[in-house]
């Protein structure tokens, strides 16, 4: 941990609070010692008086994964139904609190539930709590269909805009359009190095963001490369790439953990949603005469790429060295 003391630290799981309390305290205390604060992302169901004392003592930023009161949290299960009280309590105790809300059928499947969710966002605004609104992924029975997902997010975008509620992804989408720093999702991820997230595992190994690293634990590659961006910039949209996309420099193909067919060499399957939101906020920025920064869509070396698409490689080197196929020519 000392090696990474200049990075923002947070204890993640699974669910980190299932660890023995003394272990949680040890880790939070170490973060506090190194940085004067600490962080945790939890489902919140195990937070009790001991943890509240701990969070205050170690100046812990507490991220709660909570989708809204009562039935809005069906996706996460009944144990989370009353977490709104926990959130209120944390705020009352002066603990820095944020929320990750997963948008699913539970809280946005019907207009009635969506209305309740919006009301809860207003309650959170009064508490000074914001966070992220993430689309549900990996649980098909709770995921919204694409059309509904776009409808819900556009509705939430309009709602947040009208009431000046600052939730991601909307703030990040605006930042993307303005060319400002934003969440890693829209920053061009290298799934094998993930500079935005360094993960320290229980055995001391260093790996990359676990969202992109779920099937087997790969150690972190020390250098960031732009391979994914290069692929997506060159690959036509009908084949899973982003070539000529107007929003390329605001999005860079989205998060590889949500790539089409779970293949990081494709853009995100959430592309239609992000495009709709980029369009919405582009219109807003244009209306207030703040022109979005959208450099020309990616279109590099069009002629050469077209040749490759048609499998025509005959004029780019064959005959030069048909047998010169090697890896490390200096060794011999």
């Amino acid at each position: 941990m000392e090696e990474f003391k200049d990075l923002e630290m947070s204890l993640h799981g699974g669910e980190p609070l299932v660890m023995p309390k003394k272990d949680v305290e040890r880790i939070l205390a170490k973060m506090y010692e190194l940085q004067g604060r600490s962080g945790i992302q939890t489902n919140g169901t195990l937070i009790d008086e001991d943890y509240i004392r701990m969070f205050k003592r170690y100046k812990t930023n507490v991220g709660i994964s909570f989708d809204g009161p009562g039935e809005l949290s069906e996706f996460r299960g009944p144990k989370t139904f009353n977490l709104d009280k926990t959130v209120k309590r944390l705020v009352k105790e002066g603990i820095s609190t944020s929320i990750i809300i997963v948008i699913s059928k539970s809280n946005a499947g019907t207009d009635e539930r969506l209305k309740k969710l919006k009301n809860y966002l207003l309650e959170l605004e009064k508490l000074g709590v914001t966070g992220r609104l993430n689309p549900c992924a990996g649980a098909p029975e709770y995921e919204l269909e694409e059309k509904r997902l776009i409808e819900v997010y556009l509705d939430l975008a309009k709602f947040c805009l009208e009431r000046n509620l600052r939730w991601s992804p909307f703030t990040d989408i605006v930042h993307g359009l303005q060319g400002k720093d934003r969440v890693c999702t829209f920053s061009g991820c290298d799934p094998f190095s993930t500079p935005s997230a360094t993960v320290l595992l229980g055995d001391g190994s260093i790996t990359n963001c676990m969202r992109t690293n779920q099937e087997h634990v790969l150690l972190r590659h020390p250098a960031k490369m732009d391979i994914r961006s290069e692929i997506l910039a060159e690959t036509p949209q009908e084949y899973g790439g982003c070539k000529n996309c107007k929003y390329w420099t605001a999005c860079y193909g989205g998060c590889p953990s949500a790539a089409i067919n779970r293949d990081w060499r494709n853009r995100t399957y959430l592309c239609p949603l992000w495009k709709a939101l980029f369009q919405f906020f582009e219109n807003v920025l244009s209306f207030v005469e703040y022109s979005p920064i959208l450099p020309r869509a990616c279109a590099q070396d069009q002629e050469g790429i077209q040749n490759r698409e048609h499998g025509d490689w005959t004029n780019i080197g064959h005959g030069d060295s048909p047998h010169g196929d090697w890896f490390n020519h200096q060794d011999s």
Partner: protein
Amino acid sequence: MKDFVRIIPKQGFEEWPSKLGEMGHLYHLTEYEMVKKGYRAAATYHIDYMRLIEEMEKIKKDGLIFTPLRKSGYYQGFAHFHHPVKPGEPFFWYGCLTKTQKDAEIFKEADRKGDHKIIGKMLGYPDCCVEYFERMFPINYDPIWVDLEGEVEGYPEANQMLRYFGPRITSHLSCSPNCKATKEIGQIWFKIMKELNEKLAQEMYELLAAPIVWNSYHGVVQVETSYFVGLTHTFPYLEKPRIIYWKGRKNKK
């Protein structure tokens, strides 16, 4: 797509990137020895412009001849082609290594004409693999058994799916995973490798015989073994990935 090679070890296998480098080195030593010991007439050879004198002295001492054919620019990682030399930038000499002047002249002339049959024969490649290469390279410059995908069994000697990262037993691209001629030639290469470094040679053989997933898509091939994932640039399959699930096979007749 820029040239690149990336090796990402799995948890607990941190030593593999350097081990793969050692395997690549062993392969190159074997390439040299195969000519020196007379198992083939020629090898392709690369000499950094700064090491020309030392290399030439070694080659002369070993009774071999290096004939430069062209200069090539440097690149990151693995190369499918020779790169143009930029003025003022480092380069290496590409040429042929032979035992006799006559062979050097034959190779040079075949190279000038682009006669793959003669070049392949001098490099000790099976005729079937030379024919396969001539047919496939113009349409796919990384021709790993282009008609195959899904589960594949074959000889470790024919497995070129890790060559981007170093490990390979033979120097040619085999026409089929079950090419018997490749297996026979590969047994000679493997014998020489074992003479140079038995433990490492055996380990490389086991690696090439073990399950591998070779997955090529959008210009990047991702190869997964039990110990690491390797990535490099390759022929850009556009519509869908071409995936080979290598089941391996050891010493089957």
